[in-house]
């Protein structure tokens, strides 16, 4: 049941407990309780909005940083990852397989700011062997949503 609720909320966080109750055939109070519980145990981390910032000409610079690190005894990659993810500029941090270890999504106001962060904060961390910075040039799809040229329904209004 909680999975059904989470799927609905993941698609539209504004769906009310009453609406979810109808959609799943679960009493409204039970839905509200399950949501509360998921919020408390951090199954639901946060409710947020996917924004196309280009629309409001907000100058943000995003960069994808590949970070190669030397894992440390007992803690592996976790402690270095933590040193990185504690910075609020690091919006997303993943441990990945392949030619590098950590993938970091950084946001800054200018290219300069991001470059400074990488060279002054990220690269000098002990255990970081090297970084490769990819500045994001264009966003096509964000979390499943196509930013531009989204297909519209092209149906005839009435078909028998």
């Amino acid at each position: 049941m909680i999975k059904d609720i989470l799927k609905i909320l993941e698609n539209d966080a504004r769906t009310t407990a009453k609406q979810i109750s109808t959609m799943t055939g679960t009493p409204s109070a039970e839905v509200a309780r399950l949501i509360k519980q998921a919020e408390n145990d951090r199954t639901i981390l946060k409710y947020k909005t996917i924004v196309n910032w280009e629309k409001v000409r907000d100058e943000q610079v995003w960069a994808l940083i590949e970070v190669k690190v030397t894992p440390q005894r007992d803690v592996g990659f976790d402690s270095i990852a933590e040193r990185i993810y504690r910075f609020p500029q690091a919006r997303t941090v993943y441990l990945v397989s392949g030619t590098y270890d950590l993938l970091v999504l950084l946001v800054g106001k200018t290219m300069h700011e991001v470059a400074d962060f990488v060279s002054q904060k990220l690269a000098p961390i002990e255990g970081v062997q090297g970084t490769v910075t990819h500045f994001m040039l264009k966003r096509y799809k964000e979390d499943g949503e196509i930013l531009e040229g989204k297909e519209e329904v092209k149906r005839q209004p009435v078909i028998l």
Partner: protein
Amino acid sequence: MSTKSNVQRRKYSLTSQRVNQISPSGIRRFFDLLSSIEGVISLGVGEPDFATPWHIREAAIYSLEKGYTMYTSNLGMPELRQELSRYLQDNYNLEYNPDGELLITVGVSEGLDLTMRAILNPGDEVIMPDPCYVSYSPCVVLAGGTPIMVPTNEENDFEISPADIEARVTSKTKAILIGNPANPTGAVMLRDKLLPIAEIARRHKLLVISDEIYAKLVYGVEHACFATLPEMKESTILLGGFSKAYAMTGWRIGYAAAPTEVIASMTKIHQYTMMCASIMGQVAAIEALKSGDTSAAEMVEEYNRRRLVIVQGLNDIGLSCFEPRGAFYAFPSIKSTAMTSEEFAERLLIEEKVAVVPGSAFGQWGEGYVRCCYATSLADIEEALSRINRFVDKHQAT
């Protein structure tokens, strides 16, 4: 001299008497009205609001690039028939020979037309439920047969009763035609309800034409394919397609699965009138059968949520609505408004800009109901419900 008087006696018409006896869709006027109004939320459609899943479209694009632009075998591409045969085996444990028992058609619409032309002699009767899909009865008439309607009603969840069928069987009865799940009602007949119908078909040696285009769109129940009923494969003409479950309406690909003799006759008509279904659509259908199950399942999950919202919403408004367990239609009663279904649909469209289809378009027993398709976004469903609510409140007050 006598020849001349004969000629004079015959009433002149450019078109055939047979076609003249079919009335055009009763809501033509309604269509025209609709196109002149802006901002309409339409619950009047009969197709998914999803575009065809990308992997299916991509397969068709690729095939075009590779030059798949020719006619195919009249029966349909061998690979598609093989995949279809496998699909029927996997889903229903039915064995259909891809060479002889399967025919790829231009949607179920063509399949239905071919069926009637292949099996009916002049005056043969076909028993079908009322209300039912709009083309059932005209297809029978065009093929020279006579449709025999069996009333169904909300009290019996719009299921066709075996006793009512039995009472209408005559020496001219050739077949029983049912849509399961049903358009426009969303009714689903489960296996135990179909068994007595199969028994009647067996006893009177009738064919059963089972339109199962909505087979995959069932909610919380198991779809029973008519051909799986005891001894029924030999007398069932199973019609199915890709339009609804895979959101492929515009591709126009359906199929018929039936005894060799029937498929051979249907193929004769198909080859002289249609040649073959479009190759592009067939290629897309192959991809749908091979790997479309996940996308289909996701759509069904979404439809189910919308179904629950619209049925609950309509009941809350006071338009009693039995629970449809299949397809993507709700069929609420509008009797409490004291309007005819056509009047209701027309005024709702003009006053609140919501399009629904009058139940009377589907037969006289559809009067008093409207068909609301919930294959539209939840936001639109909720907005439509609030508009319908306002409309109903207003007209019950006066």
